[in-house]
């Protein structure tokens, strides 16, 4: 009779104690850390620091010296803010800059064992295939997810977060400032009143992007009109267009983001059935892009926008 009651009391007590001891740890610990970090953030060497990734807030205790990047965009960001020397390995798709330490690590199908083999103190990745972040955290490795940016502001923020995470806050701020002013310059130079239309090609089966995507928004900044926007909702921003529709739309410009993946060029486009009659094809409006640059949201976005802007200006002068 007294025994069960005793057990109940003991269990209840244990819960109460656990609740008491847990609460301050959860609310007091990390939040306190983040507060101190943000107050001391003006100083370069301010660690520990709290950064915000797609996977939530992370506290980094010391300046990371063994960074593994599984994201080509993060690799470009890291090298552009002067953190390249701290990067010891990057994934197989990270082909820029040339001195990035490319390995056979995969960002799409990451192998946790292979990553841990580099003894990293920070892993930056873009796609979360399931439990990469939690697996690394479980092994005591800080994992920062920075997934595909939906807009320029997110791209800038990711550079700032990487600056904070690696101890290059000022360089990151300077880079973002430079990107902002370069892009503003291109936007100011553009003439949105011309109504120039374009078709953006992701692959040779006519997958395209709408203005809801990161790349689509870049074109929108310059006032170019996207023929893929005629597609209704539900396409997820990346519709496969009908050849008939592209021909009927007769866009002024055709941007090829499939020069590497699918070997497309102004010549192959002209050889497609029915495409030779397009204004862009006969008027030199087919613009080959670097697939890699077009798929990333790092510092080279400015180069991409410059290329688009130059093509649009050329088309307007010709008209």
């Amino acid at each position, binding site marked *: 009779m007294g025994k069960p009651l005793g057990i109940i009391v003991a269990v209840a007590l244990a819960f109460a104690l656990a609740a008491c001891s847990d609460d301050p740890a959860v609310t007091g610990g990390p939040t306190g850390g983040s507060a101190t970090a943000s107050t001391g953030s003006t100083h370069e060497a301010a660690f520990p620091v709290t950064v915000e990734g797609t996977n939530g807030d992370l506290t980094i205790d010391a300046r990371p010296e063994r960074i593994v990047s599984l994201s080509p965009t993060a690799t470009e960001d890291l090298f552009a803010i002067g953190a390249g020397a701290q990067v010891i390995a990057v994934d197989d798709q990270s082909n820029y800059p040339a001195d990035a330490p490319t390995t056979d690590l995969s960002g799409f199908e990451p192998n946790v064992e292979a990553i841990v083999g580099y003894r990293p103190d920070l892993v930056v990745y873009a796609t979360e295939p399931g439990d990469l972040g939690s697996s690394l955290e479980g092994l005591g490795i800080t994992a920062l997810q920075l997934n595909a940016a939906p807009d320029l502001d997110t791209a800038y923020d990711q550079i700032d977060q990487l600056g904070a995470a690696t101890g290059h806050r000022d360089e990151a701020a300077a880079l973002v400032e430079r990107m902002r002013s370069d892009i503003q310059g291109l936007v100011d130079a553009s003439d949105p009143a011309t109504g120039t239309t374009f078709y953006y090609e992701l*692959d040779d*089966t006519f997958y395209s992007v709408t203005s809801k995507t990161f790349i689509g928004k870049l074109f929108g900044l310059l006032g170019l009109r996207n023929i893929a926007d005629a597609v209704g909702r539900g*396409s997820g921003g990346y519709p496969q267009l*009908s050849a008939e529709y592209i021909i009927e739309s007769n866009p002024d410009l055709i941007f090829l983001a499939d020069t590497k*993946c699918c070997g497309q060029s102004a010549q192959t486009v002209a050889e497609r059935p029915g495409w030779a009659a397009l204004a862009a094809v006969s008027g030199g409006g087919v613009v080959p892009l670097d697939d890699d640059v077009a798929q990333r949201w790092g510092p080279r976005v400015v180069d991409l926008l410059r290329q688009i802007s130059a093509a649009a200006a050329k088309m307007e002068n010709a008209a």
Partner: protein
Amino acid sequence: MSRTGRDRRLSARARATALGVVVLIAAVLIALLIGPVRIGAANVFRWLFSFGNAPPGMSEQQALILADLRLPRVIVAGLVGASLAASGAAYQAVFRNPLADPYLLGAAAGAGLGATIAVAYGPSDALDLTVPAAAFVGALIGVGLAYGLGRSSLGGRATTSLVLAGVAVASFLTAVQTFLQQQRSDTLRQVYTWILGRLGTTGWDDVRLALPSVALAIATLWAVRRLLDVIEVGDVEAQSLGLNVTRLRLVVVVAASLATAAAVAVAGLIGFVGLIIPHTVRMMVGGSYRSVLPLSVLFGASFLILVDTVARTVIAPAEIPIGVITAFIGAPFFVVVLRRNRRTA
């Protein structure tokens, strides 16, 4: 009594054939009339009757869309549908298995593997030749493995053993293909393009690519359609009637695999057609391959032409992958036909 029965069967076959031809003509017309770009029925008919010259009142662009995009696409869809349906019917006859189909037998998976090898490791400037050839070899290997495995190790004629072997072979070949794809990630996108289908980029090149193989394969199957009835009864019976069963089976399998490979090479992997069409035809006219094979060709072509019309119009100006729709329409359709058949039988 037997004479009137024979007449009735004959006229049923004649009626079904007439229906098949009418449906095919209707499907082609519908497919030409409907598309993401509005051309107008009157314009399409005038264009047809002026044999492809742009009639007055029709823009050059509309004529271009009809001639260079819509018409070749309709033809390719028809060829692919006819190939898949005819090869399905042929596999079902020679393996005496109602579930035999280019997909279940591993022919399509083999063709996909062949196409992958050609894209990833072959010369990049001759894909139009190497891909169909490699797909054909792959399809033959797939069927050969499935048949050999089903007969030798899983106990002969049982319906399930062939299907089980086909599933195992298809999984294995698909695994090899995925591995090769991963090894050559630079050609990944192109491989996907081949596998997922390219009807959206079809032009006259694809017609020229598919037509010879499809014509040869279907003509061969058509020529032996009477013998299919004999072989379906049983090897011993067929042999006692003086038929070289081994040779016939080889000819039929090679022809059906050629048709499958041509279909995969121009349109990617499209499921369900080889199963639904022959079974639907059997429910209409009975089991004789003298009717089943020609009607499968007609209805298979009509089916895929109509499905492709849906694929390019429902969310126009965007497209839906055609394989998604064959499954989406095909599965419920199959159930409906089965139920109706059971009720009337």
